[in-house]
């Protein structure tokens, strides 16, 4: 999930002088990165001939490549910088978005849901809805996903260009065009294959570029305990270092949320919705070479996801401990000319990194942006070509025609994203609405897909009306709170609740509306014969046994280990 808190707030940023100056070697490192990703795109074009190659990377990915790419597509620049800023603002509570807000859902995807996606041979999540619930559900899901994906891509693009302007003084239009044209070229040439290859490369660079901040920062503070002591000294009376113990009430923590919102809103609905039904990430997993690899991919992704707080949350906490100035929200930063939360990561990079390392750190941020954007455009190209163009416009073209459409669609997707970036530049408030719009579809979609996979009695009418009702209720609640801010006491069950709590509770209610409507309409309509549900629903799908494999080769074994590590982390940081 991208940081909903986030970056997009230009005014303060525009008022400041740039933070860093790059040396020749830093520029060489960044230039080499661009050469590498473009080179990989040109190299892989020869291996991308059929629709299966272009849209699903030939379904030949190993578990490791699919798993790392699955995670990298999510690890965009907003994710890196937005959550580092959130860690400064909210403390270790931000780690919930990496742990309970990701790990259970990723394991659930790997163990429970992937068999249905994989065995049904669908090429996309809307494609699964078509098989399970028919064309109307697919159309609703495909159109909303396609529109939201390019819009989000544009917003990410703008935010990244803005950071490049502030950090390095680069022209905002140059950053937008240079990065997005690069992504368009390498994804347009090699499709998902190229996107995945580059995402694995980007994943490695993100880690190697960002990890040093935490290592040197912890040396400076004398380790974790030293960092915590300094935070308590700098921020007396506030608790930034406990994960669960402050969640008893909305007023005990800086996020203004309670444990119910985190566990049920974030952990059970938003996170499940994002990680199991957002095609941006699911596409990477269904490109795996066999069912076992597809099940292992999210588990590998979960193991690494659990470690991401080390490069995102720890820098935010270190900033609380070592930065002499107190960072503020955007409005105050504008008024005082100071720095805002969102600049934490570049500021920490500047604090610890000299020539060369600085270039690597900036490359990590650019790589994060590109992996996120490539994820968006490759998923958009697939959904547009298969679920909109082939389903509604031209049903009987050749495979070559669809590949060609995918390549053009990649370029058009990038151009539309650039258009969105320019639009956001002119009307910054759009950003808040589009981020909210994206969240409208995720929670109800999870309800629809989950019932589709787990409940034979769910009917096409139930699936469609449930999805529509869930989405409409989410939009309704959002509009209600916008028009009457006091309505948050009804949506989030407390007048002390803040925006984050509202997001969590809105997701929870819209998911429940979706499930209730799906169940009610399904029970009122004629059930589908079981012959139509083969390979789509639990109880009608023969899932290959893994009993013949040694224990250490079974996905469930590794999922269990990751789950145990997850629980231990919760206890350590309780």
């Amino acid at each position, binding site marked *: 999930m991208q940081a909903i808190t986030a970056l997009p707030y230009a005014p303060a940023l525009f008022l400041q002088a740039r933070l860093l100056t790059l040396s020749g070697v830093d520029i*060489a490192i960044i230039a080499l990165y661009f050469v590498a990703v473009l080179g990989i795109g040109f190299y892989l074009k020869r291996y991308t001939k059929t629709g299966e190659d272009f849209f699903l*990377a030939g379904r030949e990915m190993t578990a490791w490549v699919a798993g790392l790419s699955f995670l990298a597509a999510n690890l965009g620049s907003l994710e890196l910088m937005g959550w580092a800023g959130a860690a400064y603002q909210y403390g270790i509570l931000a780690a919930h978005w990496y742990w309970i807000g990701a790990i259970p859902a990723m394991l659930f995807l790997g163990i429970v849901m992937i068999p249905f996606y994989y065995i049904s041979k669908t090429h996309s999540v809307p494609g699964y809805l078509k098989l399970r619930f028919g064309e109307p559900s697919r159309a609703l899901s495909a159109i909303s996903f396609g529109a939201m994906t390019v819009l989000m891509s544009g917003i990410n693009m703008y935010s990244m260009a803005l950071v490049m302007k502030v950090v390095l003084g680069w022209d905002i239009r140059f950053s937008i065009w240079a990065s997005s044209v690069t992504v368009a070229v390498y994804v347009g040439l090699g499709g998902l294959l190229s996107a995945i290859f580059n995402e694995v490369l980007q994943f490695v660079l993100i880690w190697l570029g960002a990890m040093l901040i935490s290592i040197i920062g912890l040396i400076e503070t004398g380790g974790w305990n030293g960092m915590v002591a300094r935070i308590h000294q700098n921020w007396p009376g506030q608790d930034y270092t406990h994960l669960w113990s402050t969640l008893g009430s909305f007023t005990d923590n800086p996020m203004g949320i309670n444990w119910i919102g985190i566990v049920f809103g974030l952990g059970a609905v938003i996170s499940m919705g994002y990680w199991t039904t957002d095609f941006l990430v699911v596409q990477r997993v269904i490109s795996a070479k066999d069912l076992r690899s597809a099940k292992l991919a999210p588990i590998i992704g979960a193991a690494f996801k659990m470690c991401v707080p080390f490069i995102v949350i720890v820098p935010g906490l270190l900033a609380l401990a070592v930065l002499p100035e107190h960072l503020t929200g955007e409005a105050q930063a504008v008024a005082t000319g100071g720095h805002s939360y969102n600049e934490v990561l570049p500021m920490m990079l500047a604090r610890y990194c000299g020539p*060369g390392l600085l270039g690597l750190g900036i490359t990590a941020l650019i790589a994060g942006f590109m992996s996120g954007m490539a994820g968006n455009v490759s998923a958009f190209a697939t959904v547009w070509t298969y679920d909109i163009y082939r389903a509604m416009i031209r049903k009987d073209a050749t495979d070559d025609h669809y590949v060609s459409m995918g390549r053009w669609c990649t370029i058009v997707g990038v151009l539309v994203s650039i258009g969105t970036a320019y639009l956001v530049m002119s009307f910054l408030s759009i950003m808040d609405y589009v981020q909210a719009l994206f969240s409208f579809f995720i929670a109800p979609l999870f309800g629809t897909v989950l019932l589709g996979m787990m409940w034979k009695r769910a009917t096409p009418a139930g699936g469609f009306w449930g999805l529509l009702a869930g989405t409409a209720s989410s939009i309704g609640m959002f509009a209600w709170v916008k028009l009457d801010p006091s309505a948050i006491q009804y949506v989030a069950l407390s007048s002390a609740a803040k925006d984050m709590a509202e997001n969590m509770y809105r997701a929870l209610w819209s998911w429940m509306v979706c499930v209730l409507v799906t169940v009610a309409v399904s029970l009122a309509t004629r059930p589908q014969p079981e012959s139509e549900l083969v390979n789509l629903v639990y109880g009608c799908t023969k899932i290959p046994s893994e009993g013949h494999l040694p224990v250490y080769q079974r996905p469930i074994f590794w999922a269990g280990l990751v789950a145990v590590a997850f629980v231990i982390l919760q206890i350590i940081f309780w």
Partner: protein
Amino acid sequence: MQRQGMVSIWFFIGALLLAYGVLILGAALFEGPSEHPVVLAELHAGIWWGVLLILLGGLYTFKFMPGRGK
């Protein structure tokens, strides 16, 4: 994944890390001080990180070099 004749992604990663390691190590050894103040500069992080990248990159470049048997 590894199609017939396709160079492994790990080779590309290894080669890039190797090049980065050389550049970062070279910068740490031969470039002057940073234009902005760097905290804990006395740790010489550029040297250690450059060496790490060279070792990691060299290992992957060698292990996944095209033409080297599986």
